């Protein structure tokens, strides 16, 4: 299955600034998924990123706050914009294994702390 390199692994940011998280996959994939995992909670899907089209955002998440790029089939970025302490969370990217019928592979996550 695919291997995902995600960076940075962690960061501490000032409120009002933005952070861009990168995910690199070692094989071409159609869809990449971005999740947020708040402390002690489970994963919440932010958006699905397809190459060559606008990302599809889930309810409660908007492009202005979480712009996503997907320039090719192996790479995507998620930006957390105008950050506030409420954005402190772990952000993860993932891709489907075996065309989606065998679970998902996740990056190691980015632990973001906003101060």
């Amino acid at each position, binding site marked *: 299955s695919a291997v995902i390199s*995600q960076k940075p692994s962690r960061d501490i940011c000032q409120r009002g600034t933005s952070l861009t998280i990168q995910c690199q996959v070692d094989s071409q994939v159609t*869809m990449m*998924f971005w999740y947020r995992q708040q402390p002690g*909670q*489970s*994963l*919440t*899907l932010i958006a699905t990123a397809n190459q060559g089209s606008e990302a599809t955002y889930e309810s409660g998440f908007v492009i202005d706050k979480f712009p996503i790029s997907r320039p090719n089939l192996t790479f995507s970025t998620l930006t957390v914009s105008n950050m506030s302490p409420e954005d402190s969370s772990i952000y*993860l990217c*993932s891709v489907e*294994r075996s065309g*989606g*019928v*065998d*679970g*998902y*592979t*996740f*990056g*190691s*996550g980015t*632990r973001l702390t906003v101060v």
Partner: protein
Amino acid sequence: SQKIEQNSEALNIQEGKTATLTCNYTNYSPAYLQWYRQDPGRGPVFLLLIRENEKEKRKERLKVTFDTTLKQSLFHITASQPADSATYLCALVRAGKSTFGDGTTLTVKP
């Protein structure tokens, strides 16, 4: 709205015993259900997938059952080891979208 509940936030068992974790769901008809393991500071790692028309799936010491009438999946780890200590997440998948439970943290004591 869709809701997924995993039994108790934490489960403590003795090494060698069978751990049983529960995933219940409401207002949902998943095409399939997945179980993941998540260690602190890491992303989830896929363990097993079971489809709606399957009753049971096994992989080494792991067993998953899926009862669509009860809207419940059970995840068993037999002959548990301290290395099995982690948080286990269930995820329901329908129309290409996954919805995750909050997870159960398993601690296996030597």
